[in-house]
């Protein structure tokens, strides 16, 4: 007969307000096998855990059920607590009275009854638990960083500086991400490229970093400490070892009319190109969709111009297989395009641009060398209207969330305009000014008070063209909704930040969760902000939600610290909740008949077979064998097994049937 302890938590008011906790504890005392039951305000607290430990010693308990919050929250906490008192960690189960009961039902007798049922279910289970030992798995001590923006760069440098190998994969031909496109950064107005490009060079020169640009993650398998990743290195058509980056080829290319994505379509580039002058690596790429050679025409001018014969038209995509112990997702964001806004002309007015496009105009490396011009006729605009919250905080037409960075960069844009053209007029339409952050509010005040930017609280209902001007119609809600009409030369939309394109597919490959908007979900919003829902995969930057550079860098360093901590160990203790093929005395040896149906079903190739031999080496029977290091404990093989020869530790048939029978 078991001697079980049941501990019921009030969780302050969270459980106690809807479930009669003392009644639950009282009723548990009478369940068969329960030697002790009590309730407490906060079991997860130190005194709470001590109560459990004391009770284990005092009542010589051999199993524990904690009735508290979700086991996904505190199961590890309570398992540690019981080990302190000398019990095996796996002799502790958690009944979920909070998320699955008190928070989702009204206060009623039936809710308390359900709580008792949930405890009884775990009591019956824990009676059939067996002590289990953790499995030690070796760790591959290197990391993969996906995304070469500031988040990825920071994470890669931090991990590499701590002495671990890093493989960095960037989808575009060069490092830098959106930060490389920015002109100056708030709130200091220091030049983005000046602070970013040295770090890009650091990445390319670091002895511990392997940089793979123009590459994408093709396939991921494995688990924490042991990921196998296939990376598709797309054909640049330029031999990276031979190319010296002299740029001769760029001058000779006859195709000159491809929209330059680095300049957000505001200028044209050639079919062979380097995204921007400071690009790392400084190796051109042939855009095969636009190159004449690849469109079946006769042209090899770039190849002729190349002094080192680095142009290789027959280059093919390469699949590079790597093994890493940890992965950092730093895939960034994209902005909502102007075509998403019907009231602002569906993207048909060329002078309605996004904030990112404005950055390119304001940037010294941009299409106008930092002179702010408008796309339609190249004139310098005199009156510019900035629309904050374009698509953000707009559940009906855009996204529900606040894109966070727009208030600050809009103030910066207006300021930059006034600095570059003192006569220009800048208007900002806003809903609220959200400028929390070190020196942020001072920055916005400076834009208003020193640079004379006109802030109008209200939304814009419509923009249309008239006599070469953009008529911006809105309302000033601080003046009681009085209509405002501004004849503008250019309109800049602080458009919503969205998950980057391809984010969903990547999340699926990595098996990480995403939030309803498609951003990568963190394991816990407060306590585990840089971990994803998959162990060993971390996140950094705007792939989680919109954020600014300081926050991104901080988060990237945090993710790197987590990775470094993981890689500093040679072995990882893994949960022993794995499947096992039973063994029996001769002549049966095992219930397994060797059909090996399980082998084909296992998603981890964890199942092989072994031959049972007699002393003369004659094979008596072939049975399935599960590698506990590879098994992840999904249990697919268990339910597939025809002879019930396989069982899963922690979720055995006996345990589950007992749970069902307890109801």
């Amino acid at each position, binding site marked *: 007969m078991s001697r079980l302890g049941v501990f019921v938590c009030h969780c302050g008011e969270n459980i106690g307000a809807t479930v009669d906790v003392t009644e639950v504890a009282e009723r548990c005392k009478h369940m068969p096998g329960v030697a002790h039951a009590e309730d407490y305000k906060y079991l997860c607290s130190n005194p709470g855990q001590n109560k459990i430990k004391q009770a284990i010693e005092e009542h010589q308990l051999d199993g524990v059920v904690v009735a508290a919050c*979700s*086991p*996904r*929250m505190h199961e590890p906490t309570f398992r540690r607590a019981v080990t302190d008192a000398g019990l095996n960690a796996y002799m502790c189960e958690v009944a*979920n009275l*909070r*998320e*699955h*009961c008190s*928070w*989702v*039902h*009204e206060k*009623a007798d*039936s*809710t308390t009854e*359900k709580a008792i*049922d*949930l405890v009884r*279910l775990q009591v019956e289970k824990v009676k059939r638990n067996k002590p289990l030992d953790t499995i030690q798995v070796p760790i591959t001590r290197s990391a993969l960083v996906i995304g070469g923006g500031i988040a990825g760069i920071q994470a890669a440098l931090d991990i590499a500086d701590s002495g671990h190998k890093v493989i960095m994969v960037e989808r575009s031909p060069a490092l830098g991400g959106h930060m490389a496109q920015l002109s100056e950064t708030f709130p200091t107005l220091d030049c983005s490229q000046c602070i970013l490009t040295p770090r890009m060079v650091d990445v390319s020169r670091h002895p511990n970093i392997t940089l793979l640009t123009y590459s994408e993650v093709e396939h991921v*398998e494995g688990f924490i400490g042991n990921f196998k990743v296939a990376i598709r290195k797309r054909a640049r058509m330029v031999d990276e070892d031979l190319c010296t980056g002299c740029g001769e080829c760029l001058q000779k290319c006859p195709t000159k009319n491809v929209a330059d994505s680095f300049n957000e379509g505001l200028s044209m580039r050639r079919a062979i190109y380097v995204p921007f002058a400071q690009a790392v690596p400084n190796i051109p790429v042939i855009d095969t969709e636009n190159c004449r050679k690849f469109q079946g025409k006769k042209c090899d001018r770039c190849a002729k111009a190349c002094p080192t014969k680095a142009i290789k038209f027959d280059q093919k995509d390469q699949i590079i297989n790597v093994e890493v112990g940890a992965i950092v997702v730093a895939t960034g964001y994209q902005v909502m395009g102007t075509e998403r806004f019907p009231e602002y002309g569906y993207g048909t007015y060329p002078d309605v641009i996004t904030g990112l496009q404005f950055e390119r105009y304001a940037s010294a490396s941009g299409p106008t060398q930092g002179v702010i011009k408008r796309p339609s006729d190249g004139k310098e605009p005199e009156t510019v209207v900035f629309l904050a919250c374009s698509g953000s905080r707009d559940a009906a037409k855009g996204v529900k969330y606040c894109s966070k960075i727009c208030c600050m960069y809009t103030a910066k844009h207006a300021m930059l305009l006034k600095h570059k053209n003192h006569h220009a007029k800048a208007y900002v339409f806003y809903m609220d000014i959200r400028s929390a952050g070190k020196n942020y509010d001072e920055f916005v005040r400076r834009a208003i008070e020193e640079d004379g930017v006109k802030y109008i609280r209200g939304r814009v209902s419509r923009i249309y063209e008239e006599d070469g001007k953009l008529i911006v119609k809105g309302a000033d809600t601080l003046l009681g909704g009085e209509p405002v009409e501004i004849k503008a030369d250019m309109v800049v939309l602080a458009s919503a930040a969205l998950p980057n394109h391809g984010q969903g597919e990547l999340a*699926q490959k990595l*098996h990480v*969760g*995403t*939030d*309803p908007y498609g951003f990568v*979900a963190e394991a816990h919003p407060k306590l585990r902000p840089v971990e994803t*829902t*998959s162990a060993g995969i971390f996140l950094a930057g705007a792939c989680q939600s919109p954020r600014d550079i300081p926050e991104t860098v901080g988060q990237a360093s945090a993710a790197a610290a987590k990775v470094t901590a993981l890689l500093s160990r040679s072995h990882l203790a893994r949960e022993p*909740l794995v499947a096992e093929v039973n063994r029996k005395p001769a002549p049966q040896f095992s219930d397994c008949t060797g059909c090996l149906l399980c082998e084909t*079903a296992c*998603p*981890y190739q964890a199942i092989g077979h072994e031959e049972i031999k007699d002393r003369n080496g004659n094979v008596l029977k072939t049975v399935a064998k599960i590698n506990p290091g590879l098994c*992840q*404990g*999904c*249990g*697919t093989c*268990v*339910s*597939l097994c025809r002879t019930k020869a396989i069982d*899963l530790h922690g*979720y055995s*048939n006996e345990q*589950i*049937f007992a*749970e*069902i*029978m307890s*109801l």
Partner: protein
Amino acid sequence: MADEAFEPKITAFVCNWCTYAGADLTGTSRLKYQSNIRIIRLPCTGRVDFMLIQKAFARGSDGVIVSGCHPNDCHYTSGNYHARRRWMVFNDLMEFMGLDMRRVTFSWVSAAEGAKWATLVNEVTDHLRELGPYTEYQRLLNAGVA
């Protein structure tokens, strides 16, 4: 006709990674649903043996929910596909055996779909209330069919 006071007994077999977490989210979002359901946590819907469903009915459940990750989102890559395939085969078999398949609900609820879980549980509970107690199962048991 269903008895007014009838409260259906529902057993749910859910996977740890999607639906269990989704049901946690229902809680964190403080969405309410009817309290007839009892959740049994499994690692994956791939672990759901149809014996478990039969056992739940034998024990007096009026309905069963099996729910896991959406296709393509399985934490274990393919466990939910195995569950789905097994479901397709057993659905016909169990129907042939005379089981009332209206009482078994197969669903995908992800870790982000707290609201969907609440809706699903309420719909199933209401539906079972209409169907009434599953007394027929005892007759099947006695006949040695189930």
